[in-house]
Each structure stands twice: as structure tokens, then as C-alpha cells.
């Protein structure tokens, strides 16, 4: 990794799910979003996906996706992804479908690193949803 070219992020988006079409390998990003509502916190976002398109990358990389609470820049979690990219002449793409814990309402970021090199970020706003009229019973979603 230390001698590999520095990747450039062409696109990085948060959505519900990344689908790769068999045959053409075309990607569909389903439900691109920035905001997340919950009646209670801590909460869980059981389905979220991050899509990353990179240029200039070639070789072995350890990408790190860090989920950071911007209130105090505390790290909620980090996911490491090992990838071997063969040809820097072509764009390379990563898709991560996962579920995340959201400790409190506020602003968060997904920060992408290649090794220890900061590449890019996308923000996510966790907001408290207004209570429904009539006191409806509601359970927060849980990670499966």
C-alpha cells in the first residue's frame, strides 16, 4: 500500500442498497439519501449502502470506512475493506451493504481512507422524528 498510487474518488454516495446487474455489471444505487429519522436514539439503520468509484488506483489497498459523529468527532465504528485493483487505467468501484448503529441524533460522516490517507467523506443527518398523533406503538428497527 505505501508504494501504490494515490486513488482519487470520483463518486461516493450513501443509499439504501447497491445492486450490480449480472451480465452487464451495471450498478443501480437504490434510494440515495442524506437524512435518517428515528423516534428514539440510540437507533439502528438496518439497511444502508455506500458506493465508491475510484480513479488512479492500482495494487493492493486497505480501504477504511470510518463512521464519525461530528458532534465531538468520535469514531462510531470502522470497516476495513481489502481490495486488489489491477488496472489504474480503468475506474474501480466498491459497494458495501451494511447496517449501522446511530448513537444519537446529529450529524455524522462516512470518511474514506486508503490506508492512512484521507480520500473523501459524505455526511448523514440523524434527526428525531416527531411523535405520531394518538400515541401509536412503535419499535425502533434492529439490526438483523
Amino acid at each position, binding site marked *: 500500500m505505501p508504494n501504490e498510487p494515490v486513488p482519487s474518488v470520483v463518486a461516493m454516495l450513501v443509499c439504501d442498497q447497491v445492486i450490480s446487474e449480472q451480465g452487464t455489471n451495471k450498478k443501480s444505487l437504490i434510494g440515495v439519501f442524506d437524512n435518517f429519522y428515528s423516534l428514539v436514539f440510540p437507533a439502528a439503520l438496518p439497511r444502508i449502502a455506500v458506493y465508491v468509484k475510484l480513479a488512479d488506483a492500482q495494487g493492493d489497498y486497505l480501504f477504511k470506512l470510518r463512521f*464519525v459523529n461530528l458532534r465531538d468527532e*468520535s469514531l462510531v465504528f470502522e470497516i476495513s475493506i481489502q481490495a486488489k485493483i489491477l488496472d489504474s487505467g480503468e475506474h474501480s468501484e466498491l*459497494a458495501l451493504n451494511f447496517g449501522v448503529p446511530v448513537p444519537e441524533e446529529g450529524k455524522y460522516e462516512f470518511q474514506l481512507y486508503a490506508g492512512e490517507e484521507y480520500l473523501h467523506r459524505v455526511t448523514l443527518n440523524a434527526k428525531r422524528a416527531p411523535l405520531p398523533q394518538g400515541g401509536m406503538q412503535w419499535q425502533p428497527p434492529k*439490526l438483523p
Partner: protein
Amino acid sequence: MATAEAPLVHSAQQLESGTAYIPAGQGTQYFGGLLGPQHGGPFPLSNVPVMILPSDQLPNPRPSLVLFAGLRDPKLRMKQAIPLDVTVEEGHVIVNWAAIDEFGSGDALSTAINDFAYALRALYWYLAGVEELGPDLANIKLTLSQYIEAR
């Protein structure tokens, strides 16, 4: 009360390049250009190793040094990452590249890095457009050329 649980990775994939269409004759599975059935599960199988770091092993997200590689200019390529010193002054995060004394500031590390990236892009293109530079600016241009190159 709900509790925040650990993250759960359903699928992690390094993806193949997409193709606009499948030409006829590339295989009967494509029915002459039409795609066959897609996978039925909610998530495809992972094809790259993934590791989730537990909360007690997480590094400091606002370290005293960051390696900057987020230039975000489609006409430029980074040859190597730029080391940035990180400090906090009066509630603002400041990142500084000591070699050319260029800095960025913001409410958080990433906003400071974004501010630095903006300043660095502007500086690069300004210096690229000037034919004759004084010794200080020429030195800065030389330093920049060791980290950034045009595509």
C-alpha cells in the same frame, strides 16, 4: 430504550466495470441482448475481505497528523499524500501543510480538509498560469509538483 448495536456488513464487493449492453451472440444466457434472471437474494456474496473494528480498538479520528489525498480536481492527480498537521484553536480545527505554509480551517477535521483542498487547488492553478515567479512562489510551485501533477 433502544440500544445502538454493532455494525453488520451484509455484503462487500469490488465491482466489475459496467457495460452499456450485451451484444447478441455473447452467450445464450443473455437471450440475444436481453439479460437473464438476476440473483434472487437480498444481497450478493462478498468478494473482498472485510473487518469491523470494535469500538475499544478505534483510532483517534482527529489525529495530530493526517495524510491528505482528497484533492478532488478531475484535472489533477496526486503523486503522494500531503502530510497535514492538525490543531484545534478556539474551537476550530486547523490543518496546515508546513512545507508551503498553506492551511485550511473548519468546524471539524473534514471541513478543514475540504477548505485546505479548495485553497490548494486554487494555489496550484494560479501558479500553473504564471510564467515568471519570484523565488518564494517558484519554491512553492516546485514543492507542489512533487505532490500534484496534471492529468
